[in-house]
């Protein structure tokens, strides 16, 4: 649904986006993460046919962003970084204006506006001027504007910023619903929890380049090492670590716990439990040590750029290189 190949944008001598490539299918949500000025907004503007790429190509909903800008813009709903509402208007009037711009008939527009206002709990505020809206309400209305014409592609920049937890939840549910409606969504956000929660795929962009691309799990494995598991037993650990030799590589131990890495926890963990049961070791818990997307983000974005310019793109799990390092270093000495 969204296909970018070698997309670049140069402003005079400044290269804002450098050879960005990715693919977002129908029913997929891709989070575009990166620090301010990394090139996220410029990428989105190229995908909306607002800016012309200096190099590379992109197709959105089957339309070329350079040759078919009108069709591209018709197929895309955009939530811009700043909501950009007209403060003297009322919500229905505002949405009717955008409905007209997108070619909706008055009847279609009224139905859709009513449906979306209800869905986002905005009915009560209909009579107010937009200038009287809270920040969160303005953000929700801007999101409604983006969804108004039922576009197959949505480009959402910080959709839950300035929202209270309740509204943010509402919007997150709406984005999740977009996935089930088979729409392709690009989500630009600094909220990594939200990205982890919503995105099927993450692209991290730094200095205009995609430096990491893959699912959350893939990125964690790639940047933080294999899955880290923690085993707790109901007695001192004496001899337990040694009994697992040959099955797993224990990386840290405590008085009644140990941790090990595993590429294939689904296969390894039952065998670990079997061996411990055979030795009558009372196991309390065996769980994955939580590792957040934030850890990956800080590692990726904080890391110096690779000199070959290639992103660490995860294709399949089997292709994932297994760097040793950051994960082990993060294990607390005593937990």
């Amino acid at each position, binding site marked *: 649904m969204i296909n970018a190949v070698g997309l670049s944008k140069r*402003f*005079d*001598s400044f290269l804002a986006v450098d050879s960005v490539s990715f693919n977002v299918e129908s029913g997929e949500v891709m989070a575009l993460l990166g620090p301010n000025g990394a090139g996220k907004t410029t990428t989105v*503007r190229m995908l*909306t*046919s*607002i*800016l*012309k790429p200096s190099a590379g190509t992109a197709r959105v909903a089957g339309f070329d962003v350079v040759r078919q800008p*009108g*069709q591209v*813009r*018709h197929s*895309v709903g*955009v939530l*811009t*970084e*700043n*909501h*950009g*509402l*007209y403060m*003297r*208007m009322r919500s229905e009037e505002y949405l009717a*204006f*955008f409905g*007209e*711009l*997108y*070619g909706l008939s008055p009847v279609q527009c009224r139905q859709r506006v009513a449906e979306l206002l209800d869905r986002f709990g905005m009915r009560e505020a209909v009579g107010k001027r937009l200038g009287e809206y809270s920040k969160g309400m303005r953000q929700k209305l*801007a999101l409604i*504007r983006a969804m108004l014409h039922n576009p197959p592609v949505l480009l959402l920049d910080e959709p839950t910023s300035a929202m209270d937890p309740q509204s943010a939840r509402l919007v997150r549910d709406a984005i999740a619903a977009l996935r089930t409606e088979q729409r392709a969504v690009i989500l630009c956000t600094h909220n990594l929890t939200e990205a982890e929660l919503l995105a099927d795929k993450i692209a991290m962009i730094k200095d205009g380049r995609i430096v990491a691309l893959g699912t959350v799990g893939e990125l964690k494995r790639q940047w933080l090492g294999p899955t880290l598991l923690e085993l707790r037993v109901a007695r001192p650990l004496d001899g337990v670590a040694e009994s697992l030799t040959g099955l797993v590589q224990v990386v840290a131990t405590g008085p009644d716990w140990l941790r090990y890495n595993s590429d294939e926890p689904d296969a390894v963990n039952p065998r670990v439990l079997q061996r411990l049961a055979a030795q009558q070791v009372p196991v309390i818990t065996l769980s994955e040590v939580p590792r957040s997307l934030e850890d990956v983000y800080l590692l990726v974005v904080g890391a110096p750029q690779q000199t070959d310019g290639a992103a660490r793109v995860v294709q399949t799990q089997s292709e994932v290189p297994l760097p040793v390092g950051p994960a082990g270093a993060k294990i607390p000495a005593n937990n």
Partner: protein
Amino acid sequence: MTWTEARQSLSGALIITRREMRDQLRDWRIIAPVVILTLFFPLLMNFTAGQAINFVERYGAPVIGQRLVPFLLMIVGFFPISVSLVIALESFVGEKERHSLEPLLSSPLTDSQLYIGKTLAAMLPPLLAAYLGIAVYLTGLALTIHWHPDVILLVQIIMLTTIQALVMVAGAVVISSQTTSVRAANLLASFIIIPMAMLVQGESLIMFWAQYDVLWWVILGLVLVTLVLVRMGVRLFNREELLGRDIDEINFKAGWRTFADAFRGVGRGGGLPAWYRGAVAPTVRRLRWPIGLVAATLLLATVLGFRYASVYRLPLVAGSLRGVEANFNHNLAELGFVSAGGAAWVFFTNLRALVIATLLGIFSFGVLGVVLLMVPLALTGFFAGQVALIGLSPLQFFVAFILPHGVFEITAAVLEGAAILRLGASVISPPGGKTLSEGWLMALADWAKISLALVVPLLLVAALIEVFVTPLVVRAVLR
């Protein structure tokens, strides 16, 4: 574009117009001045006109009153449209500043639809207010002093009012495209306000002299200015320009780099010959159309000068030229013409003319620069015509007096004129992918290349020939 497409395109633009007009009608800062200028100001002008007529008639100068009434008609029309400048700045750059432009730019409307929609929105309310103000003023005059305007004058005033509103809005679009804040746009608006104020003063003079026919030329001039500004606006009001650049800061370093890169051209290194090959030659090739245009214009000026010789005939007789020949050497020696100093004088005079032409060209989209270059050629044609009128050969005159140094001088004028024209055109239509300032700096670099590499050497040669060779040829011919 078919009629249906044009209608669809306009209907898209009108969505923007309707929204913006609704928005304006909710803003008391726009409504208040428009209402005052539409209703109260014309009535005040009625009163003023009545009082003024009574006053001047007491002193036996009714003509002042007669001239004042149409002048006030123009002013009543002009004041409301001055609001259109503010609305246009607010509409174009204000939306950019408030970030409400991006959702619009993300919509399927084309750049032209957005431009037309916003232009109409900025123009229509003040223009309707101006028409209403004129109607109020005329009604008041009809009721109080029973004055009715001449239909032609009324048409002229309505046309002036309309075209002036368009000039201001089109100018505001150009300004808006070069700024990212209303504050900066308001500062730049002086480039519209000052010329408009001068224009109104000029129109006032014309109206007080009752030279109403001249107003047609003013209207024609304004139409041309509007066309240029609309062309610039359409070129500059596009998504790429509006959201692709942050252009409020003056970046001398980047500006100098743009100029220097364009001046050096491709294939740096290799000294002067490489620069001529890599920078000057491509510029001349790029200027082939302006060169052709300027050459044709100068030829036209010569022909016009020749034609006007019979209209403004000089009291010359063929016999008197013999006396010129007799004292030729003596006169030249007395002037100190045939000397290095004479050559330097000719060179610097020509150079000064080209510098003035360039400066005029910068402020007139290239037009006045070329017009200035046309003057000497028109005079040449005029004198050739005078020579023909007294029975001598104009061709012989041209070959003897002009051709020896003219080959170099006219070539220099054509090249310089082309560079000036490009400098002006770069403002109207910057090269693709470049900002207005980048385009202008590149054209300035082209002008500098042409001037330094070709025009100055040509003028130097021309000056030497004019001083040391042309007199010999002239004397030989006169003999």
